[in-house]
C-alpha cells in the first residue's frame, strides 16, 4: 500500500466521520466542525490519490487543495457570522425546535 493510498483512505474515513456528525449532530458549532472535518477528509483524498507515478507531488492537486481551503474558510466564516447573529438574536445554539416562521 502506497502512502498516497493510505492518505486517501484516511481522508475517506474522515469524510465519512464528518458526514456522520453532520447527520447526527444538532449543535450548530459542532455541525460546522463536522463540515470542516468532511472538508479536510476530501482534501486528503485529493492529495493522496493524485500522486504521479514518479513520486513527484502533483502541482495541480496542490493548487486545487489550496483553492478548496480558501473556499472552505470563506464558507466557515460566513457560517460563523450567521450563527453568531442567530445566537445573539435568539440565544439558541440549534436550529430546530419551533417551526419555521
Amino acid at each position, binding site marked *: 500500500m502506497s502512502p498516497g493510498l493510505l492518505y*486517501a483512505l484516511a481522508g475517506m474515513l474522515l*469524510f465519512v466521520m464528518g*458526514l456522520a456528525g*453532520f447527520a447526527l449532530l444538532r449543535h*450548530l458549532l459542532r*455541525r460546522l466542525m463536522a*463540515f470542516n472535518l*468532511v*472538508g479536510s*477528509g*476530501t482534501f486528503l*483524498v*485529493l492529495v*493522496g*490519490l*493524485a500522486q504521479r507515478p514518479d513520486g513527484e507531488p502533483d*502541482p*495541480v*492537486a496542490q*493548487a*486545487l487543495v489550496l*483553492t*478548496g481551503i480558501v*473556499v472552505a474558510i*470563506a*464558507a466557515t466564516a*460566513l*457560517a460563523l457570522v*450567521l*450563527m453568531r*447573529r*442567530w445566537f445573539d*438574536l*435568539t440565544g439558541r445554539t440549534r*436550529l430546530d425546535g419551533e417551526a*419555521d*416562521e
Partner: protein
Amino acid sequence: MTLNLLVAGLLFTPLAWAVVSLLIGFRAGRWLAGAGMVLQAGVTLGLVWTLTGQGGFEYALGDWQPPLGIGLRVDGMALTLVLLTTLVASACGLHAAGYLEADRPGQRYFWPLFWFLWAGINGVWLAGDIFNIYVGLELVTLAAVGLVALSGEPPALRAALRYLFAALAGSLAFLLGVALLYGAYGTLSLRLLAEAVQADGTGSAALALMFAGLAVKTALFPVHAWLPPAHGIAHAPVSALLSALVVKASAWVAIRLWLDLGPVLGSSGGAFLMGLLGTAAIVWGSWMAWCQTGLKKLVAYSSVGQVGYLFLLFPLTFAVSDRVAELATQGVMLHLISHALAKAALFMAAGNLIWAVGDGRIVSLAGAGRHLPLSLFAFGLAAVSIMGLPPSGGFTAKWLLLQAAWQAGQWGWALAVLVGGLLAALYVFKVFAACYVDKASGDDFHYPPRRLDLMPLGLAVMALGLGLVAGLPLHWMGIGGAP
C-alpha cells in the same frame, strides 16, 4: 483580443462591481448596477454574435493553459444560459432596486452579493473543468446564502443556515467526486474526462457522489427541505434570482456531467433512481405547494416540483436512441429556460402582490382580482408556463419530453409530466381563486409602482411566447463546442 475583452467582461467585471458597490452602499449601487447590466448585456450579445458567426470554442483564461489554468467551454448551450442569466438577473436587479427599502441595515450587502452571484453563475455555465465548476458553485452558494440572510431576522438566519449546511454538504460530496475522478484519470477537463473514463468503480462512485451533492444543491426531493424556507423568506427579487438561476446552475452541472460521463459511468438503475426522485419531486413539491398558506412559500415549493422535470433527463437519455436523447435534452433545457423566466416572474409578481395587499398570506389576496393589478396579470401569464399550457415555453418543453418518453417507450415518465402539469394547476389556481373571493369590507390596496410590474410582466411574456419561438433557442443550443 475582442474575445478576451468579451470573456473578461462577462466573468470579471461583475466581481469588480461587487467590490465597488460594497464601498458605496445601496442607493449608489443602483446606478452602478444599471451601468453594469448594460455592460453585461453588451458583452453577452457580443459573445452570442461571435458564437453564431464562428461556432463554439474553448478559451483559456489569461492564456494559462489547463490543467493549471482555467479553461472555458464556450458553446451554444452555455451561451444560451448566459443570455438567460443576463435577462433574468437584470430583471431581478432592476426589480430589487425599486423593491428593497434602501434604509434597512443589511441592504448595503445586496449589490455586492448580487454581483458575486452573477459572476459565479456565469462561471458555472462556462467552466470547462469540474474543479472550476466546484469553485463557481461555491461562489454562487455563498452569495446566495448571504442574500437569503440579508434581512438579518431570525427566520431568515435560520433559513440561511439550513441552506448553508445543506449546500456545503453537497459541495463537499461533489468535491470528493472531483478528487476521485482526478485521482483515477488525471484530468479535470470535462472534454478529456469524457474521452478517458472507463466503466470502473472509482468513476461510478465519483459520479454518485457528485450527483448526490448536486441533488442537494438543486433541492431534489428528498433533500429539498432547505429550499422552501430559504426562497420563501428572502426578498422577492432575491427569491426570483435563487429559484430562477441558482438552482438551475447545479442542475445544469448534473445534466452536463450526465451527458458527458453518463453513457460510460452511468447505470440504468442510477438513471431510474434520478427519474424516480424527479417524479417524486414533481408530485411532492406540487402537493406541498398546494398545502401552503403563504404566497411565497407556495411559489417556493413550486420550484421544488419544477426542478423534478429536469431529472427526467436521466432515464430519457440513458440507453435510448439518439433521437430520443436529443428530444429529451432539448425538452429539459427548454424547461430549464422557461422555468427560469416564469419562476422569476412569479416571484417578483408575488412580491408585488404582497406589497399591494400588505400581507404574505394567500387569503389576504381576497379582492385583489377586482383591482386588476398588472402583477396579477404577470403572475397569471407566468403560471401558464409553470402549468405547461400552450403556447408557453413550459408547454413546448413538455411536448418534447412527452415525445421523448413516448418514443423511448418509457410511458411512466410521460405520465409524470402530465400529472405534474395538473398538480401545478392545483396550486396556481388556489392563488387565483383567492384573488377572486369577493371581499365586502376594507379596500386597502396599494398599487405597486408601475416599473416594478414591468419586470415580471416582461419575463412572463417571454416565458409565454417562448413556446412559439422555441426553435430559436433550440437552434442556438445545438451549436456545439470546440471541434
